[in-house]
Structures are given as structure tokens and as C-alpha cells.
């Protein structure tokens, strides 16, 4: 994608006392694309989003949103983006419709527009029936949807989503994903943070992996998976008695072959599609019956393990507050100090 940059982080740094929550992060989000900021709790994702959305002032470095500087042109930035924070920041005492009206008035949007947009957004997010109920009666998923509706009121070309699906059940999660894809189809640029590897894989064009305030990898989901390790060809046989013959056959094409008797599987390190095709052709020519033959790529979980030496969930604490980074300096400073 060769579009202009919608969001730019240029060596962003944020220290809270001795805690280097964000320690020199750079990335670019081209217009109309989706960037997934992936990392465990306490990695600095929320702090990054807060700096880019003018809520937090960087210790050093710069951020640009829609070409505007987040420190020197905060109002222009605020006009160009929408933000859905980690904790659904809706007013619980106001109704869903009133929440939209409040934010509409603060944007200075024309009343008629706010009326129409409220109806349209509540309908889109399946909240029409709950429009006149106080938001405190909403479920977690409904609050998230209302929060997103509020963020979309002024039709921002750039949308920041901080862990949009944390704490949602699988159904609400996939519903939200569908909405986010629609927004992308309309041309919205998304920057979303997530702890879920699957979410980044599902939605993002580019993934930036952050850990302990630093970028540890960046690329498309496919690139990251390739980086984590070679793909492998997995052959599942119909009859266990063919295992030895099959292993010999595969060994002619791959230096590393593993046989698993119980699952009747032969796994071989492979360079890519070429190796798979050659192995498939060899079986085709033999008399060995197969149940399945395929190329297995490492999952993003494997990627994370490979990059950080720990699983994504290891660093996750029970806490799910909006200022996790600021609240728990312990695990973040550890190892990140100079």
C-alpha cells in the first residue's frame, strides 16, 4: 500500500519515574490500512495509544496523526481521530442516545446530523432497543459497542482502538470484528492494540509486536510467521504400516523428518510450497494411501514465543484496568532498564 501516512510514531518514549513504559517506538500506519499493536499486558500498548491520541505527553520522540503533531497540534489531531479506550468510557448514568448527544455537542456537530447519526449508529450496533436505557444497565459487549458508536459519531478517518475485544465473549468479539472490517472497507485507518494473536492475525495488514516498551518485530502476519521458523509439511497416513516407507520417501526431500506413530503422521521441515509439491508428487507416484497432506505454518503464538522467549499470556496479570502500565511498574521495568 503506497498511501500517505495516517499515523506515525517516531522514536516515542514515555517514562513514568524509573519505569520505561515506552522506550523508543517507531512505526507508520499508511492511510486506509490496519495496524495491529500486539503485546502482553504491560508492554506499553496503552501508553502508546494515549500518546498518539494526545492524552499523554511523550517524554521524547514525536507522533503524527493525519499529518498533525500530537504535542503541538492536539486540537487538529483530536478532530481527525476517534478513540475507543480500553475501559469502555461511556457515561453510565446517561442513556445510550444521550451519550451520543453529549459527544456530538462537544464536537460541535449540527444537531440534525447528530440526530440522524445517533439513529444510524445505534441501529448499526444493534442498540436501538436500548437507546433510552441508562448505560449502566448494558452488558459489557453493549458498552463496548456504544463506546465504538460514540467514537464514530464524527466519522473520523482514523480510529484508535485499545484492546477493543478484551473481556468480550466469542460471539460479541466476532461481531465487533465484522464491524471493524466494514469500517476499513469505508476507508477508515485503524490502529488497534490487542493481546490476542488471533485478533491481530484476523484484522491487521501489519503487525508491530511490542514487549517491555520496545518493538521486537514488525511485518505482515505471514512474514512474522515465516520469521518464527520454517514451515513444515505434515503427512497423515491412512495405514500405520506405511509409516516407515513414507518416512523414507520424505527423507529424500527434507533433512529433518519426524514420525509420530499414534497419529500416523510424518512431519518434515520444509522450505515452503516447493518442498510440499515435490513431497506430494512423490506420494502420488507411490502406493501409500494418505488421509491428508498439508503445509503447516507456525501460529502467531509460536511467533510470540520465538520472539520473546515467553508466551503471550505469561505476562498477563489479572488486572484489567485502563492504566495498567502506570499501575504495575514491577514487571515492566524488569529487564527494560538500560
Amino acid at each position: 500500500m503506497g498511501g500517505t501516512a495516517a499515523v506515525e510514531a517516531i522514536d516515542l518514549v514515555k517514562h513514568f519515574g524509573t519505569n520505561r513504559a515506552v522506550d523508543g517506538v517507531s512505526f507508520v500506519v499508511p492511510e486506509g490500512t490496519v495496524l495491529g499493536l500486539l503485546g502482553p499486558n504491560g508492554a506499553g500498548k496503552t501508553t502508546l495509544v494515549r500518546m498518539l491520541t494526545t492524552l499523554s505527553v511523550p517524554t521524547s520522540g514525536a507522533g503524527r496523526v493525519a499529518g498533525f503533531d500530537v504535542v503541538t497540534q492536539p486540537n487538529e489531531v483530536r478532530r481527525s481521530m476517534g478513540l475507543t479506550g480500553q475501559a469502555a468510557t461511556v457515561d453510565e448514568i446517561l442513556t445510550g442516545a444521550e451519550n451520543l448527544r453529549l459527544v456530538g455537542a462537544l464536537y460541535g456537530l449540527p444537531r440534525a446530523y447528530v440526530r440522524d447519526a445517533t439513529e444510524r449508529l445505534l441501529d448499526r450496533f444493534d442498540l436501538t432497543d436500548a437507546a433510552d436505557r441508562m448505560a449502566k444497565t448494558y452488558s459489557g459487549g453493549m458498552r463496548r459497542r456504544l463506546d465504538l458508536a460514540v467514537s464514530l459519531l464524527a466519522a473520523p478517518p482514523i480510529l484508535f482502538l485499545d484492546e477493543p475485544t478484551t473481556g468480550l465473549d466469542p460471539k460479541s468479539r466476532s461481531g465487533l470484528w465484522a464491524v471493524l472490517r466494514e469500517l476499513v472497507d469505508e476507508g477508515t485507518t485503524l490502529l488497534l492494540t490487542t493481546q490476542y494473536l488471533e485478533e491481530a492475525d484476523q484484522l491487521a495488514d501489519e503487525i508491530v509486536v511490542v514487549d517491555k516498551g520496545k518493538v521486537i518485530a514488525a511485518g505482515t502476519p505471514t512474514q512474522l510467521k515465516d520469521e518464527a521458523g520454517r514451515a513444515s509439511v505434515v503427512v497423515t497416513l491412512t495405514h500405520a504400516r506405511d509409516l516407515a516407507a513414507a518416512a523414507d520417501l520424505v527423507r529424500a526431500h527434507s533433512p529433518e523428518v519426524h514420525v509420530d506413530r499414534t497419529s500416523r503422521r510424518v512431519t518434515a521441515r520444509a522450505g515452503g510450497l516447493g518442498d510440499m509439491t515435490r513431497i506430494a508428487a512423490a506420494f502420488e507416484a507411490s502406493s501409500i494411501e494418505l488421509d491428508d497432506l498439508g503445509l503447516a505454518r507456525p501460529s502467531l503464538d509460536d511467533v510470540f514465543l520465538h520472539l520473546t522467549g515467553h508466551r503471550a499470556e505469561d505476562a498477563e496479570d489479572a488486572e484489567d484496568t485502563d492504566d495498567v502500565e502506570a499501575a504495575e511498574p514491577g514487571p515492566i521495568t524488569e529487564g527494560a532498564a538500560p
Partner: protein
Amino acid sequence: MTTLPTTRATRPPLVRPPLSPPSLARAASTIVWRNLLHIRRMPEMLLDVTVQSVMFVLLFAYVFGGSIAVAGSDYREFLLPGIMVQTMVFSSAVVATGLTNDLQKGIVDRFRSLPIPRSAVLVGRSISSLIHSSIGVAVMGLTGLLIGWRIRNGVVDGVLAFLLLLLFGFAVIWLGIWVGSIMRTVEAVQGFMFTVMFPLTFVANTFAPTESMPTWLRFVAEWNPISAVTQACRELWGNGLPAPADAAWPLQHAVPVSVGWSLVLTAIFAPLAVSAFRRRSRD
């Protein structure tokens, strides 16, 4: 529009509505509207300045009042200005809890992510807290009228006393914003404000004359800004005698001193409050 990559744009592109970021007055009044909606939805929020204050009036007027001797005035007349000042001072607790709650829930972040003047959140908060306290003062006034309190010095002085109350309320609101910006939870704010407000409003001439207090305590009480404001209201409303000749200097010049205290408190706490709020909302 030509620079937009169109490879994925299968839906009609976004049409942005015209944004006209509001002035401070419009943004603040929108936030006041929102805060007043909260009071309408949860009238129990007003308990602190209504039922609680009425209980204080009745408690002191009828339970303790008989044993508190006030020279030259009926005790109930003496009491009412004191309770009104106390109600006004409590607006600092109101503003503090409201602000902490909004900070904690991320509402302040939501406001700050919008193109509104930076001060709108605080201005809106302050105005709605003053309205909150004024409702309390109005309830006090009506209760007072029922039990014999009167404004005896005419309309001008009467109104002046209410304006003085608002001015003092404005001053203590900064204390509330300061506390609300520093503390992390609503419970902490309430605990702190309760601990500070009670001695502050009782070690004063609000409920009993200072003459009978031990010398050192009397000194503290008479230099307490709350005493000056209370004395000023009593004088302007004609509720009781002027301060005794041996009372401390602030009570001898209660009206100008009250104005002075309000300005001094604002000068001290407003910068502290603004910088604490900024620091809190920068990170």
C-alpha cells in the same frame, strides 16, 4: 480523496460532517448539562446538601440549641448562616468526588480526546458543583424560614450575603479539584474530605459562639476563614449582634475579610489544583 488506496474500499467512502469545535462556554455548559442529568437521575446525590443539612438544622436547633447561649439573638437565627456556610464548604467534597469518579471511569479521557478547550472539564465541574451547593443553600433557607430565621437587613445586604457564599464556595472548589486530582479513588476522597471538613466547619463560630472556647482554640476558630464568612452572613442578614469587642481581627471586619479569604484561598489552591489536574491527565 485521490490519495486514498481504493483497493479495499468496497463500501461508499466516509462523508465527514462539519465540525465546529465549541467555545469554552458551550463546552462547559454541555458538561454542566451532563452533570445535572446525573443529579436528576440520582437525586440521592443531593442528600449531602439537603436531608443531611436539614438534619443538622433540626439537631442543633432543637437538641443542642437549648443549651447553647447566644447573646442578643435567637439560637436558630444564629445557626442558619453557619449551616449555610458549612453546606457551601461541602461543595469542595462534591467537586472532588465527582472529578475523581470521572477520572477513574475514563470520562475525563473521553472529554480530552475531543476538540474542546482544555479548561472546559474543570469549569463545567465547578459550575455544576456550585449549582449543587446552591440547591442545598436554598433548601436551608426554606427550612430556616419555617423555623424562624429571617433576613432582617433588606434585599441588597441579603443578596450580598448569598453572593459572598457563592464566592467562598468558588474558592473552596479549588481545594476540591486539587484533592480530586491527587487521590485515586472516590472512597479515598470521601474519607479525606470528611476528615478535613468536619473539624474545619466545627472549630469555628458556625454552631456555637467562640467566646466560651479555651483561648488557644478560640484563636484558631476566629482565624478560621469559615468563621469570617459566617460572621459576615450574620451581619448582612441581621442575625444577631456584631462580633464581641475582644474577638479576633477577622471577625471585626467580617465582610471584607471574607472576600479577602476567598481570594487568598483561590490564589493558593487554583494553581495547585490546575497543575495537579494537568499532571494527572498528562500521563
